[in-house]
């Protein structure tokens, strides 16, 4: 990567000679998706993309140009284009830009990867998926209409230079997998997934993650539950105490805390698409003035969390990875920021949350790993035993939240009755709804560190043009009192 880093430094020097602030990124991604579906290899796909993205600031105006031409001519043409695009905008006042408090980014960072997935043969990995997918169909129930097992691997190599003196390179490998069974009968269709829905479990890791999941071992239970859901009673509506499984709770954190604390949203920079936030900037200028939830709510942003998808050495503005508290004992302390948004509210340094999806997109504020810290409620069994009556909700099925991140509705694949401190019958089509501060205010117990783990989401959308980002959220199961259940 040294040659391309030299190219980026060269183009930044050219920008500086014209008095233009510039950040130049080179990104090379290799994505591989393998899937077995209904006994067929349904997908063997590799996408490789490489290019340059150059962001400039001319006066108060921003411009960004992306090209696949990784050459001196391509880089300088992109710089010229970025400047022209910036100059075509209506004149804007030059706002503040937070300094690099810890100096410019220099060096190389690489994420963990024990067993390189790209070094393994396709045949071996497909055989692994075949075995898992076959196990979903093992009992031959005709009501199982779709069975699938999938894995994805992504390697991203980046280089960044800037007129602020950044010159760094990074390498990340993401690997994950999952299985899913779809059952249909009459007017009903039900889905069951393991270890989580959507893209499955994905981490900064290698193939060791996939083998550790034991997909084939869990498959028979997954298929059996999909069939059982077809005739399970519909989840009753009403106000109930609810215990959320870690994955569902992670998505709850993502949607109603992570997004709500993105400072660009708070400052209305995302009002045209992703929306704003119920949190006002004044609550950040006067840290400690806003109660977000109960005293059990401790939330941390951590771009240094090992193996988590929101971890890195430096963000895409060259700010070093940081860990800092967002909420302590239910009280808001900080937000997720990049250099411009941090400066707008008078912060002395960026929160280090600027990330871009590939070479053709510019950095915007994205969550690093926003996690609910473990509590003191002990094991999951301890939490259940302490719950006389309620519902246990597991595995996300759908999610929706308003543009201020207040009113939400989530559905899960399954609910189980909690009765007398134990899990009981299965319910289908469960959902629950709430309003962000009231919901987090109702949380009265969080399981302890032994139950805590990061859950990952690879499909977080934001920005225009659209950007997809991956992030992890650490959670342990938690209990919420008096939740509206079954509105859907």
């Amino acid at each position, binding site marked *: 990567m040294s040659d391309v880093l030299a190219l980026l430094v060269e183009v930044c020097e050219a920008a500086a000679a014209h008095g233009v602030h510039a950040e130049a990124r080179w990104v090379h991604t290799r994505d591989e998706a393998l899937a077995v579906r209904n006994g067929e290899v*349904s997908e063997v796909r590799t996408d490789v993309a490489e290019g340059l993205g150059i962001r400039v600031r001319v006066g108060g105006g921003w411009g960004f140009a992306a090209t696949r031409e990784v050459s001196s001519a391509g880089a300088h043409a992109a710089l010229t284009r970025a400047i022209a695009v910036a100059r075509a*905008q209506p004149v804007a006042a030059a706002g503040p830009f937070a300094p690099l408090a810890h100096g410019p980014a220099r060096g190389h960072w690489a994420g963990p990867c024990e067993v390189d997935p790209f070094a393994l043969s396709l045949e071996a990995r497909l055989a692994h998926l075949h075995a898992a997918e076959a196990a979903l169909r093992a009992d031959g129930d005709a009501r199982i209409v779709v069975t699938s097992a999938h894995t994805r691997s992504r390697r991203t190599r980046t280089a960044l230079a800037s007129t602020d003196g950044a010159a760094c390179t990074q390498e990340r490998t993401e690997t994950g997998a999952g299985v899913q069974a779809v059952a249909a009968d009459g007017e009903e269709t039900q889905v069951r997934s393991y270890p989580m829905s959507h893209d499955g479990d994905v981490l900064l890791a290698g193939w060791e993650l996939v083998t550790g999941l034991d997909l084939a071992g869990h498959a028979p239970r997954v298929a059996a539950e999909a069939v059982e859901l077809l005739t399970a009673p519909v989840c009753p509506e009403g106000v109930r105490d609810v215990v959320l499984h870690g994955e569902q709770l992670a998505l709850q954190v993502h949607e109603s805390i992570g997004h709500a604390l993105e400072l660009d949203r708070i400052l*209305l920079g995302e009002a045209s698409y992703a929306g704003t936030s119920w949190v006002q900037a004044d609550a950040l200028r006067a840290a400690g003035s806003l109660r977000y939830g109960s005293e059990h709510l401790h939330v941390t942003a951590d771009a240094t969390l090992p193996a988590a998808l929101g971890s890195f050495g430096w963000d895409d503005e060259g700010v070093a990875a940081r860990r800092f508290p967002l909420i302590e004992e239910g009280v808001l302390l900080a937000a997720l920021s990049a250099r411009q948004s941090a400066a707008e509210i008078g912060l002395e340094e960026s929160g280090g949350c600027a990330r871009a999806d590939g070479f053709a997109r510019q950095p915007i504020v994205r969550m690093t790993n926003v996690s609910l810290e473990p509590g003191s409620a002990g094991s999951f069994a301890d939490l259940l035993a302490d719950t006389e009556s309620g519902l246990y909700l597991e595995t996300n099925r759908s999610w929706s939240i308003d543009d201020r991140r207040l009113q939400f509705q989530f559905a899960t694949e399954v609910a189980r009755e909690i009765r007398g401190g134990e899990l009981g019958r299965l319910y289908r089509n469960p959902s629950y709804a709430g309003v962000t501060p009231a919901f987090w205010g109702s949380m009265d117990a969080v399981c302890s560190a032994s139950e805590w783990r990061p859950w990952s989401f690879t499909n977080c959308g934001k920005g225009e043009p659209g950007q997809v980002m991956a992030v992890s959220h650490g959670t342990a199961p938690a209990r919420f009192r008096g939740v509206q259940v079954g509105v859907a």
Partner: protein
Amino acid sequence: MSTDPLDLADRALAFTDGDAQVTVTRERSLLSRFARSTPTQATAVDDTSVSVLVVRDGHVGTVETNDLSDDGLRAAAARARDAARAAADAAGGPGEHPGLPTVAQAGTPSAHAGFDAATADLDPAPGGAALAAAFAATAEHGLEAFGIWTTGRVETAIASSAGLRVADDVTDAYLKVIARDAHGRSGWGAAAGVAAETLDADAVTRQAVARVATSDPVALAPGAYEVVLEPDAVGSLLDMLGGLAFDGLAHAEGRGALTDRLGTPVAATGVTLVDDPLAAGGLPRAFDADGVAKAPLTLLHDGVAQAVAHDRRSAARAGGDAASTGHALAPGGSPWGAAPTNLVLHGGTAPDVGALIAGVERGLYVTRLWYLNVVHERSTTLTGTTRDGTFLIEDGRLTKPVRDVRFTDAALGILERTSALTTATSLVCEADFYGRRAAHGCVVPALRASGFRVTGQTTG
């Protein structure tokens, strides 16, 4: 070296052997973003990618790259061949992919009106002028403007070992403006088209300004309401319904919303929904990702379910006389199915939205919907909220702004309870360009329906 996409496709195809398809996609685009009546981001993209699909014994392997050198294309072809071979070896028998379409199977793509030469020039200056117009029109009312202006050109070429050689060249343009006051009350305006010059920034902004509430919104209790949906809201519903109800793979597997319902009424009389990829006024396309020629497909006629969408892969899975309807979403067909992407809902007899509102004693007027997601696939039940302009209708007129509400309702159910449609239709799209630019939209009227199920409301 030629920069023509079809020439590039031919060059890449020369590195393959056996059954192979090469798809070249070149995107050039501009997008200017603004908030608080200030430009915030401006993006220019120039990228070309080559996708190589190889079919071996009914199994497929796909590799995409934007390395256009001979070495890069040769490596992509070899990797795709190895991928297809690995899939065949792992399966231990023939796969169900029906193979690449021949020229006769693909048909001849029709000419369409989806390209505008001036828009293809990609000049950033009109974007700057559009932003300036939006800032000025909102400032007149003490409001601020938020939104995007974007234009793009996407060239697509397919060459295959079966003799297919097709190319398409399309442009699109989109402008949206959200006008917002100091209290956070907002209104929505948007326009889309093939040509950038058709975007009237002043008119779009004034539409947004007119939808900003001038008094505090009232709360609306959960319940079933008569509703008038503006075209943007209708388009959002139909966009979701397209994948839920008309996915031929889901239908073939017995899990689709129209399972056992084709030929039966599923929507109100008067509701006719066509996927029309050649419609003027839409965003036309010549062929799908398999290279199969696009043609209109009637999905609902007078409320009766007529058809589902297929690519060659899902049609083979369905068996019988099922055939591709030109709806492949990825080369070789997406493993997750096919879906319509050019929906046209025929207009009705109401002269305008005012006539729809006039017929409502007490109900809800919705400008647009937000964050739709599927709660239950089979019943097409969706949830989402309203946004940027929601009002109460009382005695046939708009009376008060309403706090945004959450709805949870079946998309097909709303069409079943539709009682009136405007005559005029418009192109609506959200311009959600994740990954490569692929603008699509719906051509729809405004509609009135009963029993719209409100399940919650925002607070604060």
